[in-house]
């Protein structure tokens, strides 16, 4: 009990309600009894876990249902069937069912159906986990990091540059590239942190603007001789050398790159930082109530800066595992920036808690890995995934809405505050 444990003054509102002792640490089982008492404690832990999972599961389910409706009502053939609904109601329903089951069937087949596809899902989930951790960490400090996209781009640019500009043995080259990616993202994230700490500029606006600026920085870099491969005029970089690529790991037929271990290690590190370290306690206190934190003598500004540096670094790692792990190994204009927005959804679905983020990243990996197969085989545009993701965030962010749909009794207070308002 030397450092602050999770139960006492912590449990800040920055941690969403309802998840009790969900996935993270916790002060359960205070050594009271054995046998029946232990069973009861286990039972209550399980119940808490089930409660914590209930709302995200319902959110996912509802999002898939509404996504299905969107598909049905934008498909010309199915709409034709519906226009003759009274003549042939079964036909309309059957056409809708076929459309949706084909699309979702393909979505899940191409992500989980075979070991090969499963490996691809893990590969897709890896950057999302790192990005989700970035947004989650910022959330816990009371900051809304919409800038993961820009930090990803800058991180990938730095890591990519180290990856193709130098010739080094692999044991040095790869770590150096990873370090460069982290540093680039951290530096980009720190801009928003410093602005927030020094001038009070709201991080939502500054990070969005920094996103747009980062795309231009990458374009500028791609136009330069240092990045451009000989004989190419379009915006593309040279490929990262073999020595800076993440090793491929084969377990059975499941192939994925070593970035997965980096993501898991990062999740453990973030968990330790937030739940077990003094700095993390300060960070969460600032996130819960900056006035109280200042009153208690903590430096609010320093925590904002530190949180944005770490969040930026994690988002930079997201770019790094992408450029050093995703085949083609080249930077292109606007390099995978959309993953930065998926990261927000991952963090919200994971309830800003590292274990939850890993689970949410896996789920979004399924959606992302399956969506290309779905588009190729069923003509459903991949953009439906963005719609489903937005719906998931919506329902996760508005637990009261889900409760109302499913007539679940309210637990505790529904109002939750992740972020600070303009004036602070």
């Amino acid at each position: 009990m030397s450092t602050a444990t999770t139960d006492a003054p912590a449990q800040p509102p920055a941690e969403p309600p309802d998840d009790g002792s969900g996935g993270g640490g916790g002060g359960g089982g205070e050594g009271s009894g054995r046998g029946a008492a232990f069973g009861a404690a286990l039972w209550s832990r399980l119940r808490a876990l089930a409660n914590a999972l209930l709302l995200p599961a319902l959110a996912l389910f509802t999002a898939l249902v509404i996504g299905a409706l969107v598909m049905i009502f934008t498909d010309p053939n199915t709409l034709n069937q519906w226009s003759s609904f009274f003549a042939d109601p079964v036909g309309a329903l059957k056409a809708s069912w076929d459309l949706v089951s084909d699309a979702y069937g393909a979505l899940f087949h191409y992500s989980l159906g075979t070991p090969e596809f499963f490996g691809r899902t893990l590969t897709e989930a890896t950057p999302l986990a790192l990005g989700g951790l970035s947004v989650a960490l910022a959330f816990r400090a009371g900051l809304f990091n919409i800038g993961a996209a820009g930090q990803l781009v800058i991180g990938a640019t730095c890591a990519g540059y180290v990856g193709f500009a130098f010739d080094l043995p692999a044991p040095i080259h790869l770590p150096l590239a990873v370090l460069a990616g982290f540093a680039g993202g951290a530096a980009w994230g720190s801009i928003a942190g410093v602005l927030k700490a020094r001038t009070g500029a709201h991080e939502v606006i500054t990070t969005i603007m920094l996103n747009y600026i980062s795309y231009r920085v990458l374009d500028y870099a791609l136009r330069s001789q240092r990045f451009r491969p000989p004989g190419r005029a379009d915006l593309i970089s040279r490929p990262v050398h073999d020595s800076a690529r993440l090793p491929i790991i084969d377990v059975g037929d499941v192939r994925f790159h070593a970035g997965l271990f980096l993501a898991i290690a990062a999740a453990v590190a973030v968990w330790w930082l937030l739940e077990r370290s003094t700095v993390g306690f300060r960070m969460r206190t600032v996130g819960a109530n900056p006035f109280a934190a200042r009153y208690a003598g903590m430096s609010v500004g320093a925590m904002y800066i530190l949180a944005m540096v770490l969040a930026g670094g994690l988002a930079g790692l997201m770019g790094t595992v992408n450029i050093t792990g995703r085949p083609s190994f080249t930077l292109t204009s606007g390099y995978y920036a959309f993953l930065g927005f998926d990261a927000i959804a991952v963090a919200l679905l994971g309830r800003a808690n590292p274990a939850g983020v890993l689970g949410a990243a896996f789920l979004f990996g399924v959606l992302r890995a399956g969506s290309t197969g779905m588009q190729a085989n069923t003509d459903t545009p991949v953009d439906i995934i963005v719609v489903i993701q937005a719906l998931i965030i919506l329902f996760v962010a508005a637990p009261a809405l889900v409760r109302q749909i499913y007539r679940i009794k309210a637990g505790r207070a529904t109002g939750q505050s992740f972020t600070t308002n303009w004036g602070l």
Partner: protein
Amino acid sequence: MATTLTPPSPAAEPEEPPAPEVRTGLSDARRVGIGVFVLLLGVVSIVSFGLGSASGLDSRLVLSRAADAVQVPDIVLPARVTGLVLGAAILFLGAALLAGLVRHRVYLVLGIALGLFAVALLTWAARGADTSVIGLLDGTLFRATPLAFGALAGLLCERSGVINIAIEGMLLTSAFVSALTASASGNIFVGLVAGMASGAILGLFLGALSIRYRVDQIIGGTVINIFALGLTSYLGARVLSTYPDLNNPGSFRAFGIPGLERLPVLGELLFRNTIYVYLMFILVFGLWWALFRTRWGLRVRSVGEHPRAADTVGINVLRTRYRSVMLGGVVAGLGGTWFTLEATGEFNENMTAGKGYIALAALIFGRWHPVGALIAALVFGFTEELQTRLAVLNTPIPSDFLLMTPYVVTIIVVAGLVGRSRPPAADGQPYPPD
């Protein structure tokens, strides 16, 4: 006789956190910081624009078009001398700030310095060539229009206490809806109205999320933005590319105000436009009047500043907020139709490209005031237009850096280098509080 009256005291609001700043002029540190910044601008003007231009090159600033009834003579400026003179003037302003000669109107001085800098930049960029000042101002007005609508939409929401970060999503959705409906009906006004309606629906949605379901308002707005982007991209890929006829709404034409359009310089600029520019001016002054001169405006503002007090005197806080947010949605929807029915004549994926966020910055820069928001929108519009002009004029500045300018300026503005502004006191707080 004042004995019965309690003096107004700041302690009247015990549950509000204490305001971190007291409004008594500027701190010396900030004034000195601005002074150094102005000095830098002056140095850049002298070194780059003055000494950087070969002597003997003239810049011709064109003030009227060939077709105008009244011709105003062009202004011809020697590039090198102009850069040096303007640079010296900016240096003088910076020195005055640093020496403390100016203490009260610091931002005015900064504004003048930035204006002089812009003229110096333009003269330098146009050295040995013509540049149309009317074209520049016209482009400024054109680019400012969607920003002004977005900022006014945000103003309506935030004055009532609901943060609207969903302006971007409202603009994008309305751009899509107006393209679709105007093409399908063949009537451009149907697109205009449908776009406004779509904005109102999103406004209702934002209102429900933040007022009824008490979602964190910034997250609720972000959800709407992501949702709008996903849905319009999906429908664009699914519907508009399958049926290109549905993405051909046509666009509004400019029309002149009889009489006024014949004024030299100003007539062409202000009184010969599309419906959007006129609506923008009507809306700015209408909203100013409505918010600050009517009972309705007083209610909206009181709900945004101190909802409990408003509730106590019988104002329905939640209903007022719902109405304001929906009205804001209508204004944002109007702005969204600008992208398809005025700017391009078709819908493209993610065509708003962050304009909604820049509008939000314009709202903050404009200090939550309609006229301020318009001025801020014009400043941002000018930055964007200047950027495109410089790109055409083939300056040695890389085009990627020019493209960054609107975003960099937004950060500078929000970071308060140009003044810290104060939001409505209850902005972003659900009512009743937890």
